[in-house]
């Protein structure tokens, strides 16, 4: 059950030039949170809340990691330890975390919810994380500490392999029989991952993004198109969907 709570900020950190991390005193929200779920975060002066994934949760605390995109995230980035932030959560349906060998595929800030998945997955976890360049890479060390194997790709080759996640993804799928793939990142990356997963016949789950108003399923604002032509609510039916059901063409 989602709850609304005014949380105190316990830690605030700048990770990369436009990327921040906040640790919130989130009480019950932290205790019931599941990987892939998100918070609707109030950004002072903005009418609508902003959806931000739960990057880690435990012992009454939640960590969120976000990139400055516009006004809302800019305001959030100015928050300091001791300030408070009003959130609703945990929201949505997250990642399935059972399975013997799980492959996580993240692009950019999409690595954030996958970290929580990596921590909670019961089996062996491998990850492939793609970034623009080394100075926009987040959470690299913590991923290394919880995953059996982590591959990095960057568009400029400054960290790991040069290029997108596709190359290492195909190689891993050829080497290992995964129970499932969990992915989060920009839409073009998700489309590519879904396609490759289907080729290899590995069940794949993707976390989708859409602009939101209510965040709880009431306004039908956050439509995600499905292969059958219907629209599902990213906030309530997702954000995690089975990749085989999502329509990626626009």
């Amino acid at each position, binding site marked *: 059950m989602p709850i609304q709570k005014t949380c105190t900020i316990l830690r605030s950190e700048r990770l990369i030039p436009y990327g921040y991390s906040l640790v919130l005193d989130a009480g019950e929200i932290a205790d019931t949170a599941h990987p892939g779920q998100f918070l609707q975060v109030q950004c002072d002066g903005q009418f609508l809340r902003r959806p931000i994934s739960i990057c880690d949760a435990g012992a009454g605390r939640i960590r969120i990691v976000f990139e400055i995109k516009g006004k809302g995230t800019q305001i959030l980035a100015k928050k300091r330890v001791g300030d408070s932030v009003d959130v609703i959560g945990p929201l949505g349906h997250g990642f399935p975390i059972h399975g013997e060998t799980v492959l996580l595929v993240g692009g950019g800030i999409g690595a954030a919810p996958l970290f929580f998945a990596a921590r909670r997955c019961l089996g062996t976890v491998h990850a492939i994380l793609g970034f623009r360049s080394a100075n926009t890479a987040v959470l690299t060390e913590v991923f290394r500490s919880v995953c059996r194997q982590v591959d990095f790709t960057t568009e400029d080759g400054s960290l790991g392999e040069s290029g997108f996640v596709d190359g290492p993804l195909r190689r891993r799928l050829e080497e290992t029989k995964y129970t499932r793939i969990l992915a989060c990142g920009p839409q073009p990356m998700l489309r590519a991952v879904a396609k490759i997963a289907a080729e290899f016949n590995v069940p794949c789950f993707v976390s989708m993004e859409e602009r*939101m*108003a209510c965040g709880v399923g009431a306004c039908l604002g956050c439509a995600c198109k499905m292969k059958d032509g219907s629209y599902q609510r990213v906030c309530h039916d997702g954000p995690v969907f089975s990749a085989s059901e999502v329509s990626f063409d626009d």
Partner: protein
Amino acid sequence: MTDLHVNFAGVSLKNPVVVASGTFGFGREYGAFYDLSELGAICVKGLTLSQRAGNPPPRIAETPGGMLNAVGLQNPGVDGFIARELPELRRHDVKIIANISGNTVEEYGILCQKLAAVSVDMLELNISCPNVKEGGLAFGTSPQSAAAVTAEAKRNAGTVPVMVKLSPNVTDIVSIAKAVEDAGADAISMINTLLGMRIDIHTRRPVLRNNTGGLSGPAILPIAIRMVYQVRQAVSIPILGMGGITTGEDAVEFLLAGANAIAVGSANFQNPYAPLLVRDGIASYMQENGISRVDRLTNGVQTWTPCRASCEEELT
């Protein structure tokens, strides 16, 4: 003792706080936050004869003091509502107002018949949706078509009261209000969203896939207050006032302008408990001002007498 009860066109509301159509789904989601029986009434998401998929995303945009939406009346269809949503809603002690949209005048009649047969507490005719191509807004922009839809609804609604939801996207809202009152409307709800647009300057694309959408939230409050005030001067049927309400004070303003009950819409998105805060805010205002019954607030504004030549003289 503060008495929040209102008799709204024959429907007994335990308090004047209603939740606005399209902002509250069919109640399930906000029912997880509090007991829906705390509300006066729930206006359900706009219903159409057949189910509708709605518009492609993005459907939402932030605006100064509010938001744009272009959902496009996504709904399970009236039969789906009756089969799957109504029984669930009925488990709560709250009045149910069915909001309906037709493509033709006849469709409004059929919708009324179906919903009157299952005894919803009230019908709300949406003749003002800016987000669908056919019907919707088209009926709400001329007094003749608004009256035709109202009359057809009345013929098919049996004893269920019919409320007509007015569009602010018109030059003369008063003439439309009068036309629907004359056609037999039992109440008026106002206002629906104002047509708006936002453009992403980096991509030069409208933010909404539908290009335009409906503006709601605090930004539209003064427009809604003015319109409720003007319509109250011209009609005697009850008015459900809405547009940007987030606090009890906002609601009192609507009541003073001439509303008999009020609806909370987009504010739900910001704060799931907004309707309850609004209700409690109205009660505290009444206590502080020694007002025992909420219906005494309606139309309580004391407008200034128009200033004459002297004002203009001072200006020149």
